[in-house]
């Protein structure tokens, strides 16, 4: 499989009154064509900021991408001027957001909002765009699309609005769809509808997907590869089955141990991760997870480990081999 996106040393900081927030700390990752990458982590770990940086959607000031490259189809997204990035955004790379209630414009009809990208990027006239909009709404399984196209967002439910967002995302046949917690605001039965839809569309269209979430359950059913993030670092990256069957970073292990499973046989006590994530302004010098880590060594408090390969397509940033001894 060919590589679609290659991110190298991406670093984003926010310059605030209280100091410099190290939101994303020189992360590297690749994404192949047609692959689904899950980015997992807790709030404030940099999962959203990292993809917003790629899309050049970081509000400046206070934020700035201070370093790194992001190669997409032979071009570096970070170095593009505004005009170039606009031709990529919403066209080759589409994005859907967490809150379908606020990401649609309440005073424009669904047709006006979906057609906009078609007219802008594909140069369609109004009639063509309208016809294509109906097709797209059909594609995302909105019942009776031809009649609902002139409705306003408030006439749609949350799940339906997220379908409209996906239709907008798909309008220009993107090679990459970035979904930033698209189901977090939705109920669980609606969430199942949306994840199922994305799974089907991915097969039909063959696009790559980056799915950002805090829910390890969703990733398990959806992703091919997973990056686990903590405090602005990728701390583990693996194929989805390897990550769950053979987690190597103490944080990944901790996350898996701290969530109740629906299919758990008996009532077992959960093992929480004690403590809190670090302050991104005043980061500890060593491994960011060391203060909460059960396996921490002296070295962990002073030196930050980098990602190293521990198995096929499996990298971990940790000084300790959780399967025994230090590395």
């Amino acid at each position, binding site marked *: 499989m060919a590589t679609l996106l290659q991110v190298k040393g991406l670093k984003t900081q926010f310059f605030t009154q209280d100091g410099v927030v190290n939101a994303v700390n020189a992360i590297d990752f690749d994404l192949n064509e047609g692959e689904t990458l899950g980015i997992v982590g807790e709030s404030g770990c940099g999962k959203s900021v990292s993809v917003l940086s790629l899309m050049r959607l970081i509000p400046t000031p206070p934020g700035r991408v201070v370093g790194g490259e992001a190669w997409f189809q032979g071009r570096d997204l970070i170095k593009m001027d505004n005009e170039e990035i606009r031709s990529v955004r919403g066209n080759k790379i589409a994005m859907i957001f967490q809150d379908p209630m606020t990401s649609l414009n309440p005073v424009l009809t669904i047709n006006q909002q979906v057609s906009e990208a078609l007219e802008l990027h594909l140069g369609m006239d109004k009639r063509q765009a309208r016809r294509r909009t109906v097709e797209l709404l059909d594609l995302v399984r909105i019942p009776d699309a031809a009649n609902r196209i002139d409705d306003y967002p408030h006439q749609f439910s949350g799940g339906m609005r997220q379908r409209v967002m996906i239709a907008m995302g798909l309008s220009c046949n993107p090679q990459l769809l970035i979904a930033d917690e698209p189901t977090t605001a939705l109920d*669980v039965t609606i969430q199942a509808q949306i994840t199922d839809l994305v799974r089907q569309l991915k097969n039909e269209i063959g696009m790559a997907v980056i799915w950002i979430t805090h829910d390890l359950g969703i990733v398990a059913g959806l992703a091919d590869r997973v990056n686990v993030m903590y405090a602005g670092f990728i701390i583990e990256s693996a194929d989805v089955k390897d990550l769950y069957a053979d987690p190597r970073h103490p944080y990944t292990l901790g996350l898996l141990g701290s969530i109740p499973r629906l299919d758990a046989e008996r009532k077992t006590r959960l093992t929480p991760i004690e403590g809190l994530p670090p302050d991104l302004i005043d980061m500890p010098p060593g491994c960011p997870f060391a203060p909460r880590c059960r396996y921490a060594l002296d070295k962990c408090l002073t030196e930050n480990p980098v990602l190293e390969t521990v198995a096929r397509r499996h990298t971990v940033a940790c000084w300790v081999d959780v399967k025994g001894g230090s590395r």
Partner: protein
Amino acid sequence: MADKEILLQVEDLKMWFPITQGIIIQHHVGDIKAVDGLSFFIRRGETLGLVGESGCGKSTTGRAILQLYRPTGGDVYFQGHNLTQLKGEPLRRMRRQMQMIFQDPYASLNPRMTVGDIVGEPLEVHNIARGRELRERVMDLLEDVGLNRYFINRYPHEFSGGQRQRIGVARALAVGPEFIVCDEPISALDVSIQAQIINLLEEMQQKYHLTYLFIAHDLSVVRHISDRVAVMYLGKIVELTTRDQLYYDGRHPYTKALLSAVPIPDPAVEEKRQRTILTGDVPSPANPPKGCHFHTRCPVKIAGTCDVIEPEFKDIGNDHWVACHRVS
């Protein structure tokens, strides 16, 4: 468990909110039937989980039980007293026995009060302690919930979400209640912090022999913490049974769909799972469908029956209640 005494009995509980029209003269044009005829009981020392999607009436149920809303109809018996008939001082005295933990630890603590004032207030209100004794009690409570006893003079903004929720737990425990309604106590918290609070609630239950009504939308969490689980849909309980029977032998089609919609953090399991994906959305509680409320989304509905006749909430034996025409 089955022979334990019943602490709380709810009979045909109804909580309707009026819909009015007009600015000066308000006409009553309808009702939102947030809770529409619930009957269940909670045994002493158990945790009853109440699960459902947003807007199904689960939080309203919790509040109506505690008489934070005065129910439109039905009875709530707690330790032999019918709470719906009590008011004033007798009701206030009952409140010592029943407390609540709220969802949002950022909104449920007054930012201008110190932790000592927040946790100490119920002790003062109920004349349990004052002065030095009160401070000692508060400090002990803070220690109980895993906070430093010298945090007593701090303000809520100095704490993280998980720590704030611990303060909320301490406040609920302050008066030594029997029964606590936990209304989505972990859904505002980060994944790694959720387990800390779940464990704390379990420890406190053991230590103080508490009875919980645990309200949440996350079935994995509810199954973990509860002894029995009630599934709500649009103002009604559709199924109520033990945590294991619900998972292995859930009978109501909504329960089954809900179970199959919950993602399991294991790719090997996810790959093999059979999913029932419901179509459509939850209808509006202002205008619920006739007959069984679930029939508009139900994959196995019987035309002519389910859309006309409301199913009865039946005891099918073995601590298992279901409201479905398909289940006999």
